[in-house]
């Protein structure tokens, strides 16, 4: 199973990774993706995640070809 994984903003800086491609049969959930992509770092509180541009929870299932993203709370756009 091949997955594109992306990290954004402060999470990208903490993890030290912007993009990584995983290729492993053992991955089932978004949380598994985090563990493998970060070498087992703890997941910060309030981390948001998305599969293929949709917000999901950490226990959501992933499938081959998915793009999985992790990011901190949004602080976007306006006042």
């Amino acid at each position, binding site marked *: 199973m091949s997955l594109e994984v*992306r990290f*954004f*903003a*402060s999470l990208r800086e903490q993890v030290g990774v912007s993009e990584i491609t995983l290729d492993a049969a053992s991955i089932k959930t978004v949380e598994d993706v985090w563990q493998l992509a970060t070498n087992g770092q703890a997941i910060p509180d309030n981390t948001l995640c*998305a599969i293929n*541009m949709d*917000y999901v929870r950490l226990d959501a299932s992933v499938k081959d070809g998915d793009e999985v*993203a992790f*990011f*901190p*709370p*949004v*602080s*976007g*756009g*306006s*006042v």
Partner: protein
Amino acid sequence: MSAELRGEAFEPTTELQAFEARLDAGKYGACVSFVGSMRDFNAGDDVSAMSLEHYPKMTLQFLETICEEAKSRWDILDCLIIHRYGDLQPSDPIVLTAAWSAHRHEAFEACRYLIEELKTRAPFWKKETTESGERWVHDAPSTPDS
């Protein structure tokens, strides 16, 4: 209906005029617009610069989705979102949301919906430059409606 991301400075009034030129004049009686621009202060500190990170595909898709939601929830003729990313200076426009309708109530509600959804759910992250260095805004002391 239009949602756009811009890497360069934009002028909200020019954008409003250009978008309105495509609408059927005489059919709308109300336009409500919101412009969010960069302040030179936040959470008690002076802010000299800001960088706005986004997740291009997801952010654009999200902005398009909330435009569609606004159109389905209120009887509006059209709506518009333009949002900056990249490096900004104080007083730069960050975001424009606007809605056109026959009557004012719908235009106010739709315009406000767009900016509230955008603010609370759109994938944007601000990094501010202050006298004491750079900081991510989501790590900074929060203010109720900053």
